[in-house]
């Protein structure tokens, strides 16, 4: 009886797993269709004029007609996001390591870390523009700044919460501080860091776009402002759509890469 139950459960799990693996793409497509349907329904039911909420059809048409312009601005924003991610991740990792290795330093760094998150990016953005100019640097720093906190805290928490058994083992084997870090603490911290990176890739575009909003001559944020000023709300939504699509794609690529790179879990 028990055996049969176990068998049933495994078969069910197997089927469920099989079901899941059959159509992840189809699932995504279905979600998209559902969202678009809902969007169209809202436009029709509430009779929103196009300057309040354009129909998905109008937005898709804009997407096709203005794809060259949209892609140009997407490319600019992509550069800002990617460079911002590299800078933010490096800074986050560096800060987390400093806080772990030099305990007294933590007390000094922690307020800076919290302040980086507590100050609204919108408030600091215009000042950053004046310091760093209206080029790409200010947007990269904005994107880095917005991901700095989640990356640092996730990494630091990961580094701190190494299972004590491993540390004891390292001590028993008389490993140096560096060896413990390299072979024990860092690998053990990676799953936590991965969570930080997943958050980072989703929020980094916000930093870049906020930067473009307050000072830029290109990028999706700039395009959105232009479209808004000319009452081309469909074009603004087309830019938003691309930004959302970009974030989703970036998230899944990162997720896949991270899963492949960090195949262990503690």
């Amino acid at each position: 009886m028990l055996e049969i139950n176990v068998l049933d459960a495994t078969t069910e799990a197997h089927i469920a797993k099989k079901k899941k693996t059959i159509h992840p793409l189809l699932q995504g497509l279905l979600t998209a269709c559902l969202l678009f349907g809902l969007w169209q329904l809202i436009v029709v039911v509430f009779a929103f004029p196009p300057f309040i909420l354009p129909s998905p059809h109008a937005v898709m048409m804009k997407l096709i007609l203005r794809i060259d312009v949209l892609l140009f601005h997407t490319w600019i924003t992509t550069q800002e996001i990617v460079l911002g991610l590299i800078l933010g991740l490096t800074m986050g990792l560096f800060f987390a390591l400093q806080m772990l290795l030099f305990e007294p330093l933590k007390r000094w760094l922690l307020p800076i870390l919290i302040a980086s998150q507590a100050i609204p990016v919108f408030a600091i953005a215009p000042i950053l523009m004046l310091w760093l100019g209206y080029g790409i640097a200010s947007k990269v720093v904005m994107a880095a700044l917005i991901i700095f906190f989640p990356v640092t805290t996730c990494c630091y928490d990961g580094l701190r919460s190494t299972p004590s058994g491993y540390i004891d083992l390292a001590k028993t084997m008389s490993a140096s501080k560096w060896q413990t870090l390299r072979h024990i603490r860092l690998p053990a911290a990676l799953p936590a860091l991965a969570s930080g990176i997943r958050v980072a890739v989703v929020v980094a575009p916000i930093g870049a776009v906020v930067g473009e909003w307050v000072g830029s001559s290109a990028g999706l944020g700039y395009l959105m402002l232009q479209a808004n000023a000319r009452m081309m709300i469909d074009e603004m939504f087309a830019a938003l759509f691309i930004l959302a699509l970009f974030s989703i794609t970036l998230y899944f690529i990162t997720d896949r890469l991270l899963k492949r790179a960090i195949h262990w879990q503690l």
Partner: protein
Amino acid sequence: MHSQTRTGSIAKKGWLALLLSGLSLNASAEQKSVTLMLDWFVNPNHGPIVIAQEKGYFNDQGLNVVIQEPADPSMPAKLVAANKIDLAISYQTSLTIDVAENLPLIRASTLIATPLNTLMVLDNGKIHSLADLKGKKIGIAIAGNEEATVGTMLESAGITFDDVEIINVGWALSSSLASGKVDAIWGGLRNFESNQLAIEGYKAKAFYPEEHGVPSYDELIVVANANHYDADAIRRFNKAIEKATIYIINHPQDAWIEFAAYSPDTLNNELNKRAWRDTLTRFDLRPAAVDLERYDQFTQFLYKNKIIRSKPKASDFVPTL
């Protein structure tokens, strides 16, 4: 016995309250409530509105005007088009763009009938004429008309829009110019940004669009919903605005004191005092007056410069009320 008296007195008070509320209801029934959203935080450009409110001119016209302030100047006109508010401050440039994109809007009155916008540079000997802007950076607060306005001004000096680098600097116009991050700004008002820079110790030099090929236009107007506007209320609104404008022109000093008293924390400072002085000559003395040809000429200007894709006729969105 005691409690009965108390109940009686409460009942009496209740009747009195009911009577009073009935009276006040009666009073407010005569007053038409109008919501008006400014284009930005209250500033000297809104002088006639503030004075009409402070001196009770709206009330005299049977209007109860509720003034709201947004933080995004592109919002108020949209809210009027969506029929969420009655009136909003906008600009002729924006109204033309909005109407060309089928937003149901009309111009209801004019507050400032000439351009206030300028192409502003620092008066430090580096830029003498518009032609000197070739290869330079121009900071803008995106309003959607820059290619037409700035482009025409540059063309009047023999260079083109592509010869300069346009940068959106948001609302940091003065600081971006003062810090040298940009060489010129478009969107700085001649009555405001020049004073702001002067207070910070920078002398500014302004090139006026209407002197460099751009047809003159109304800088500040009031818009209403094309399908739901109350012509009678707008007429009364304009009467109050006109009376306030005349008062301001006749008594500039008293008017300044009353204006600053509207919101002393934000208005009573050196910048607004100077801006007030420079705005006095700009207020439209006839806010209800309509000049259709002037509107059509400006629409043609925007159309020719590919800012708008259709050419709405002034007679359709500038009604004589």
